[in-house]
């Protein structure tokens, strides 16, 4: 039984990683074949890094992810604090239901619904170009908001309600109590919400695809347009670089967490 489950787990992981492994392998292929490995070469990496469109797409993606996650984190955090303090539970529920719509709806519906809004409004305003950085930014903030709120809200709920009272008891005005006690207590939630928003924004293709215009291409959209043509290994090179970046980030964050835990354990002794 034990060996069976191990074999099964291994099999799934092999299937999961086989395409990625093949891709990494062929990104170093000397020829442009995706079936036969003819020799080691960094040609496709050079090709990729000398392509200005890809580099500008990378820049665009980073700008978009940083701005949209910052805006969503600020609006979302303030809103989470406000919503949790609302007396009327029905209002709270109504707001949360609406907030969660972009999370439950298929991306394609969220994307086209916003596209329709932008197209309609800009047509009414007589603008020449309706879609671009502004519209993608709005779309990204919108789908990031529920994730920020959902990661901040539990921290607010978990917070000992006596903490605020203790702060006021020791001389804080309500505003000082928020800055000195409540904010630090919910900070971990804010940070994880911001990180989640950032990665979702980096990764999004479908919603960006419908809400961006000719002038603004993100990396996923660049990948999409590259894969529309014949399969070429410079895509493999790009994917390999992304894979390595993700791998390094994950390992780093795990090591950092491990360190934290060790520290806590030492302090306990």
């Amino acid at each position, binding site marked *: 039984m034990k060996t069976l*489950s*191990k074999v099964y*787990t291994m099999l*799934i*992981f092999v299937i*999961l*990683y*086989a*395409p*990625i492994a*093949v*891709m990494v392998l062929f990104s170093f292929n000397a020829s442009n074949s*995706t*079936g036969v490995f003819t020799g080691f070469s960094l040609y496709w990496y050079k090709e990729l890094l000398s392509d200005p469109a890809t580099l500008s797409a990378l820049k665009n993606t980073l700008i978009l992810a940083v701005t949209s996650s910052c805006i969503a984190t600020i*609006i*979302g955090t*303030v*809103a989470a*604090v*406000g*919503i949790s*303090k*609302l*007396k009327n539970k029905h209002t709270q529920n109504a*707001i949360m239901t*609406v907030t969660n719509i*972009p999370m*439950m709806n298929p*991306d*394609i*519906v969220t994307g*086209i*619904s*916003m*596209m*329709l*809004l932008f*197209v*309609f409004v800009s047509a009414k305003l007589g603008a020449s170009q309706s879609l671009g950085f502004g519209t993608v930014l709005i*779309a990204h*903030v*919108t789908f990031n*908001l529920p994730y920020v709120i959902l990661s901040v809200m539990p921290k607010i709920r978990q917070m000992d309600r006596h903490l605020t009272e203790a702060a006021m008891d020791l001389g804080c005005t309500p505003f000082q109590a928020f800055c000195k006690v409540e904010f630090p207590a919910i900070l971990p939630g804010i940070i994880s919400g911001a990180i989640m928003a950032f*990665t979702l924004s980096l*990764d999004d*293709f479908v919603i960006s695809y*419908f809400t961006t215009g000719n002038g603004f291409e993100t990396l*996923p959209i660049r*990948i*999409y347009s590259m*894969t529309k043509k014949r*399969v070429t290994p410079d*895509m493999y090179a*790009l*994917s390999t670089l*992304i*894979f390595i970046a993700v*791998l390094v980030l*994950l390992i780093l964050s*795990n090591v950092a967490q491990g360190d934290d835990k060790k520290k806590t354990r030492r302090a306990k002794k």
Partner: protein
Amino acid sequence: MQNKSFMARLMAAPHIVWSILFIIAPLMFVFYYAFTDKSGAFTLSNIQQLGSPSYLTIFARSGAFALVATAICLLVAYPLAYAISRATPRMQKIYIMLIMLPMWMNFLIRTYSIMAIIEDTGFVNTLLGYLGIDPIHMINTDGAVIFGMVYNYLPYMVLPIHTVLSKLDNRLLEASADLGCTPMQTFFKVVMPLSRSGIVSGITMVFVPSVSTFYISQKLGGSSFDLIGDTIERQFQTAYNYNLGAAMSLVLMAVILISMAIMNRYSDDEGSVVV
């Protein structure tokens, strides 16, 4: 006290305004476009058009593909999640990281990588050729599309199920065995019912993107392969028939919201549903 609730409303206000402008209003536009023609006059023809056999086939096919992919994901993911949840905490962490790692890569890349290896001249067929086996045609088949869905969305099924299973108290299994259950009975009478919430969220997380995808079907199903997602995408990006696209989105959204409501009912009143 008055002051406090005023502050709360003031803080929630930007988000509420944002939600109205960019969540509710866009959905209103979907309604608006779905029920108007190009000149903006009210019409039911968009919705009626969807009743034609060609569109009904597309809807049925999308539903069937997504259902099959979801079922395969569940069958594959449940034993995997169970096996992982019985490992040591350290190993669990590593396994979960390995499951999540491909998820962090864009799904376009993941789909593309499958395409690359199952192409007629791709890696698998080259390998088969070395072994003296004739190439197998895999790309642009139904199986390839379903494999693409399963491959892309499997982690979404594994993670929620693993979360509930890893919280499962080992003493419950011991208690069940103590009370006379065989391992099989323990699994069906204790483990499965307790992991229902994970299964339900896994199913929604796989079904929703599967039923609405367009990239997977384009890359792995070939250019003539149509799912709802492809049809909607075409209305907006090439055919420029926003009204028909909006009508299709509306139907898609309705189908998903209704099925999610039904699913949530299953996960909410625990005990009343026999698994």
